[in-house]
Structures are given as C-alpha cells and as structure tokens.
C-alpha cells in the first residue's frame, strides 16, 4: 500500500504577479454628485471581483495612491495580494496634486519590481490606472512625459480616465500614449469590474505575450 501524507497543500506559488496601482483623485470636487462614495463602492466591487477568481486573487498585487487635501499624496497601506486587498475608505477634500501622485506611482512600480526581482518573483507589466475629475494643481508636464516614456520602454501600462464633464481630458491624455478615456455617467462600478476582468486576463496570459482586453463600452464615453 502506498504511503500518502495527508492534508499537504500543493499549489503553484511561482505564478507571475500582475501589479496594479490605482491613482485616485480625492480632491474637493469629488464630494459633488456623491462621486467619492461611488468611487469607494467601485473599489469594493473591484476587491470582490478579484477575490472571486482564484488566479487573479493569487496573482494580482494592488496599491492605492490617493491625492487631494493640502496637496497631499498618500499611499494607502502597502502593496497587497488581491486575495488580501481591503479597499480604503477615501474622503474627498482639497487640491489636485496629480503630478506628484503619478510620480509616486511610477516610483512605487519600480521599487515593487526591484523587490520582486530580488526575491526571484516574476511579474507582468504593471498597470497604473489614473482617475481624476479635474485639473492638476501642481506641476505635471515633466511627470507626464516620464509616464509616456516609461510606457514606450514597456515598463508600465497607463490608463488615464477622466470623471465627468469637469475633467480635463486633454491634460490627462498627456500621461499615456493611448490618450485618456472618459467615464460615462459615473459608472465607477462598471469601470472597476472591467478592470478586474482585465487583471484576470493579464494573470492568465503567457509570459511576454499580449492580452486582448474586453471592450470598454460598459463604462467609457466616446467622443463623436
């Protein structure tokens, strides 16, 4: 009779990680139209949808960077595996230091990559998703140029998304080679479900390949 050791967990711990940084506008205008609450609900939907998929739950790595207040950029907690991700409760108020927030996101992506490399953990190209409903109130052009060149160098994918009519889509478009998209009708939840499905797809993609993401028409507004 063959001897079997009971209760041993056999799981592949070497799967590639899919890092995601959410750069979220928490300036005063986010209080209007209940936007900050809708954003918080969207984050909860993201966390739940990532956790519902075993591969995305293991592979996703999430960091939230918020900006607002008295020109504050705040890293909300540490990088966490999607399976352990508890969304922060964001409060709105103050300015829109978007440039500094994107600088922070770029730095965090690089230091997280360095950390994973030194531990021998492999990873997919990180995604930075920027969400803003206004205009930067700090210096942003230099950072925007760095974001584009980081994309060109295949270091990161950046999605820049404007919320509502007041968002300056032209400015946001400078942060990504793909330009900016507009969130239609405050469909935060649809946006974050779409993002979760994108992370699911990225988690399953073979190393070095490309991924076809779902169409964005569940949440994006196209200019005609």
């Amino acid at each position, binding site marked *: 009779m*063959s*001897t*079997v*050791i*009971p*209760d*041993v*967990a*056999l*799981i*592949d*711990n*070497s799967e590639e990680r899919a890092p995601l940084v959410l750069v979220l506008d928490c300036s005063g205008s986010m209080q209007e139209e209940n936007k900050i609450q809708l954003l918080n609900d969207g984050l909860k939907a993201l966390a739940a949808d990532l956790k519902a998929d075993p591969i995305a739950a*293991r592979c996703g790595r999430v960091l939230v960077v918020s900006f607002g207040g008295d020109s504050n950029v705040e890293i909300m907690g540490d990088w966490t*595996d999607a399976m352990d991700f508890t969304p922060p409760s964001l409060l709105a108020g103050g300015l829109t230091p978007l440039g500094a927030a994107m600088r922070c996101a770029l730095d965090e992506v690089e230091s997280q990559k360095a950390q994973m490399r030194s*531990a*021998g*953990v*492999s990873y997919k190209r990180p995604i930075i998703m920027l969400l803003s409903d206004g205009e930067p109130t700090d210096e942003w052009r230099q950072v925007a140029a760095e974001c584009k060149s980081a994309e060109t160098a295949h270091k990161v994918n950046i999605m820049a998304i404007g919320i509502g009519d007041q968002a300056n889509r032209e400015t946001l478009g400078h942060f990504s080679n793909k330009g900016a998209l507009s969130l239609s009708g405050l469909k935060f939840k649809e946006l974050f479900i779409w993002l979760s499905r994108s992370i699911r797809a990225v988690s399953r993609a073979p*190393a070095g390949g490309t991924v076809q993401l779902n169409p964005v028409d569940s949440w994006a507004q196209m200019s005609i």
Partner: protein
Amino acid sequence: MWRVFSASATGKRNLEQGAPGQDANHCVVKDDVLVAVVCDGAGSVPEGRTGAEFVARALAEQLSSALRADRRPPEIQADSSACLEASIRSAIETVRGRLAELAASRQLTLHDFSCTLVGCVASPGGGSLFHIGDGFAIQQGATGDSVLSRPENGEFADETYFVTDENWNDHLRLTPLPAPERGCVIGLMSDGTAPFAVNRARSGFFRPFIDPIAAFLRETTAPKGNEALRNLLESPQACEISSDDKTLLLAFVV
C-alpha cells in the same frame, strides 16, 4: 541529532520521452554533522544524470570526510565561515577533478556532465549553505524564521549555472547557517519542487505544504517517510504544477 528524509522523482517531461530523471541527492551524517547535496543534471547534455549522481554522492562524502580530517566538527561555528568556505571550495574542486577524469576516460568533457548544486553543512554550532545555479535551500528555525539560498538564473529563465562550468567559483554562493535548534528543519530542493514548496514571497517554506509533511515524518520511519515523500513528488497535483524532475531532502533536528 538529525533525521533525514529524501526523494527524487522523475518529471512528466522525462517520463514522456522515456528518459530517466536527472536529479540526485545524497547525505552523510557523522558526529552530528550533516552534509547533504542535491544536484539537478542538465537535460541538454548527454550525461546530466550521471553528473548529478556523481557530484551529489562524491561531494557529500568528500566534504564530510574533509571536515572530520580537519577535526573541525563539532566546533564548526557560523563565524568561522572562512575556514568552512575554504573546505567547501576545496571539496568541490576535488570532486570536479574526479569527474573530469571520469569524463576523459569516456572521451567526454566536464560539460557533458553538467549539473547544478545545492547543499548544506550543518553542525550543532552552525554551518553553511552552498549553491551553484537553480534549486532552493531553506533552514527554517523553530520560530519560523528562515535562512535561504535562492536560485541564480542566467539572463533567460531556462538558463542557469553548473558546478561543471569553467567559472563555477564565480557562481558558488555561500550562506552562513545559525546553530540549528530543536524543531529546526533544513530543506534542499531542485527547481521542479520549489514552485510548491516555497511560499509566494519566496521568503521560506510554504507552510501549508511543509507543516503537514513535518508532522507526518516526525511519527514515521525513514523508509516509510522516503516513500511518502516520493509519492508526494510523483502525485498528479505536483506533476500538474511542474513537469520537471523533483527532489526534496528534509533534515530535522531532533
């Protein structure tokens, strides 16, 4: 003071090609000093398996007897690691020389016997991990703190370094080991085992993997424990995760 269990299982890739497993392991315990070696023969050379078997056995024996001849154990201390390092380098040099002779006698070269190397010297006063190429070594203390030796790969994921390389000295990595207390476990493994034996942060054993194994092995005999380890490495779940050959050597302080 040591209880050692080990198994090497042939992976799906070699089974499908009718090829033998390329992994080997060997350990020697003398005067409370454990010397253990795991080797993974390169699949791309004709004698990878022979190289792995030769190096694992010869190096464990050679290093163990060299340490005894130097009358160093059981006084090996982590802080006298310079002496220990010299012993390890010299033992590898000797074994490489003997393997080169074997190669020459068959009109082959050292390169034809390419294999990686991950091993340990562990004594009551401390010791060292030694490592060339991929594979993984972990000493997990009684409180769960771990000392690790991680794999070194080349530019591409499937490229690594071998003890048979000309410049092996540049790629030999030594990691001092603290004195092992009761409840401590040392694990050596080939790269086929690491994906499920090591945790996601690559900072130690995956506890839901190692804890049940440790509990089981504590209560069993060596032949039964070795058989159980082999069954685990050959299980469909393990084969699903990695199609490589898989070796796991576990040494418990009792």
